[in-house]
């Protein structure tokens, strides 16, 4: 008789935002069912926003996520600008793109590091987080903060990029690109990683479309979508870059997409700094008329969607926020089932949710009351890599 055990994952981790709870049902090593529960960090931001003015709600949505803290504000201001057809000065559009791409760089670096840790490549973890620092430094120079930048406002941006800072930004970007080359080589040319990540947690193109998956999760499955190109905003239609797609849909493809996307981001930032015209950064709009508006932004994890309905007063009648992970999460049902427990960690991490969930895993075997901690699950995953290495004769 088969014995089904439940693997509860989550929900709390004090270090990260967005706790989630997963219940994996396992038969031996194989995952046979998944259930997920979110909401442990539901802060009622949509309700809260209805009681704030349009200017204030930007600061609230900025605090939805510490990593995407420029995507939500941009989506929010774009929704308001869509309602009232507010013009944004050219220079402000370029600054928005620069901040967005810096955010993508640091977010993807963070992911590469953590993904490396989960499969036992702690060097990648150290590199990823160390080489992310120049980006955070640039962020501090441009916006004044490493996180929660408070850069966006309806009709423009709040801070200008000073002329003297541009050479510093370019210098730090050069530094970053060198490290990125190193990291790219270490990951994409490693035969063990090919063996470990290829064919794991495949999301087919059909399923990606059916679940309306977004961002790198969709692009790794061959769905050629990117809000920056499809629904042009900020200055993305004024610079040259390309959308990275892969066909395989597995964890390796998602890694490739993110790593190659970082090169595009660096190129976008350089072009924006070069082309950025002089001029005002704020059109200083006065009123928001009654109406509806939609703001779309390509956040590091995919499309971020804001819908705002205004009744002509100073605050929104309705403010709907849809973060990309909301659409990417349910794809777990397709990717985790029939995979082994030792792969579950990396598959769950592959869509790049916030890590609190994967950090706090433990196995409870109903029958024998066994308890394994998160370390145990990561160890399982790391051991699998070690075994692979031995088999392949790699040290």
């Amino acid at each position: 008789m088969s014995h089904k055990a439940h693997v509860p994952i989550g929900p709390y981790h004090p270090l990260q935002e967005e706790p989630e709870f997963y219940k994996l049902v396992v038969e031996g090593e194989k995952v046979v069912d998944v259930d997920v529960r979110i909401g442990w960090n539901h802060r009622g931001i949509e309700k809260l926003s209805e009681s704030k003015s349009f200017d204030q709600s930007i600061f609230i949505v900025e605090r939805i996520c510490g990593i995407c803290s420029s995507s939500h504000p941009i989506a929010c201001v774009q929704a308001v600008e869509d309602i009232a057809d507010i013009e944004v000065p050219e220079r402000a559009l370029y600054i928005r793109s620069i901040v967005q791409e810096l955010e993508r760089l640091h977010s993807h670096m963070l992911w590469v590091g953590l993904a490396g840790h989960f499969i036992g490549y702690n060097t990648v973890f150290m590199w990823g987080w160390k080489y992310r620092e120049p980006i955070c430094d640039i962020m501090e120079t441009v916006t004044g903060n490493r996180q929660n930048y408070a850069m966006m406002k309806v009709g423009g941006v709040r801070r200008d990029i000073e002329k003297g800072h541009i050479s510093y930004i370019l210098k730090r970007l050069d530094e970053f690109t060198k490290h990125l080359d190193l990291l790219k080589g270490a990951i994409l040319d490693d035969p063990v990683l090919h063996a470990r990540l290829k064919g794991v947690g495949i999301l087919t193109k059909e399923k990606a479309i059916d679940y309306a998956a977004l961002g790198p999760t969709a692009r790794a499955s061959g769905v050629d979508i990117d809000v920056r190109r499809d629904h042009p905003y900020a200055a993305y239609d004024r610079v040259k870059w390309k959308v990275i797609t892969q066909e395989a849909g597995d964890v390796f493809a998602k890694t490739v997409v993110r790593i190659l996307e970082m090169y595009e981001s660096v190129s976008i930032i350089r072009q924006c700094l070069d082309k950025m015209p002089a001029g005002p950064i704020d059109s200083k709009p006065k009123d928001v008329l009654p109406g509806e508006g939609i703001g779309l932004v390509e956040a590091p994890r995919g499309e971020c969607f804001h819908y705002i309905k205004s009744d002509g007063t100073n605050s929104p009648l309705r403010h709907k926020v849809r973060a990309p992970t909301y659409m990417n999460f349910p794809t777990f049902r397709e990717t985790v089932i029939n995979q082994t427990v030792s792969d579950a960690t990396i598959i769950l991490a592959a869509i790049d949710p916030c890590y609190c969930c994967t950090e706090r895993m433990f196995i409870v075997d109903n029958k024998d009351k066994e308890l394994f901690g998160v370390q145990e699950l990561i160890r399982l995953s790391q051991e699998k890599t070690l075994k692979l290495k031995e088999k392949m004769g790699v040290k």
Partner: protein
Amino acid sequence: MSIDAVIKKIQDNFGAKVLKIYKKNERRAYIDIYSKDVVDFTRYIFKDMGLRFNIASAVDDFNTMEILYHFSDDPSGVVISIRAVIKDKKDPHIDTITTVTKSAWWIEREMHELFGIEFDGNEDLRPLLLPDDWPRGVYPLRKSFVVPKRDSRKS
């Protein structure tokens, strides 16, 4: 497809079922429909026209409840929002669209618990966001819900 082509296609296919079309600008349009037709519209737009389902957003408009289903045509950068108005605010019902696309799975659960809208045909309307001990029949995103003031003297 330009926005006019998208609108025309929907209009040609549904005729009188389209109640009102409001083209806001070259990238956004809102189409009002009867709430009973929502599955037909979704099937046509999502399956036949191949638009991506962004999300649905319910709005408590004081007198009625409305749900906007947002679809985006990525090649042209157009977002079409289908507005289904539910007149009976006391007991709002609408058919589920999870039979057409799995991507609506979570959002229907969310609208069910935050607005109290019943999605007929959706078997899985378990709570998604609110705590397990949240009182039944209290829907926080309705306008009638007033956020209780926190008593600062209590810890």
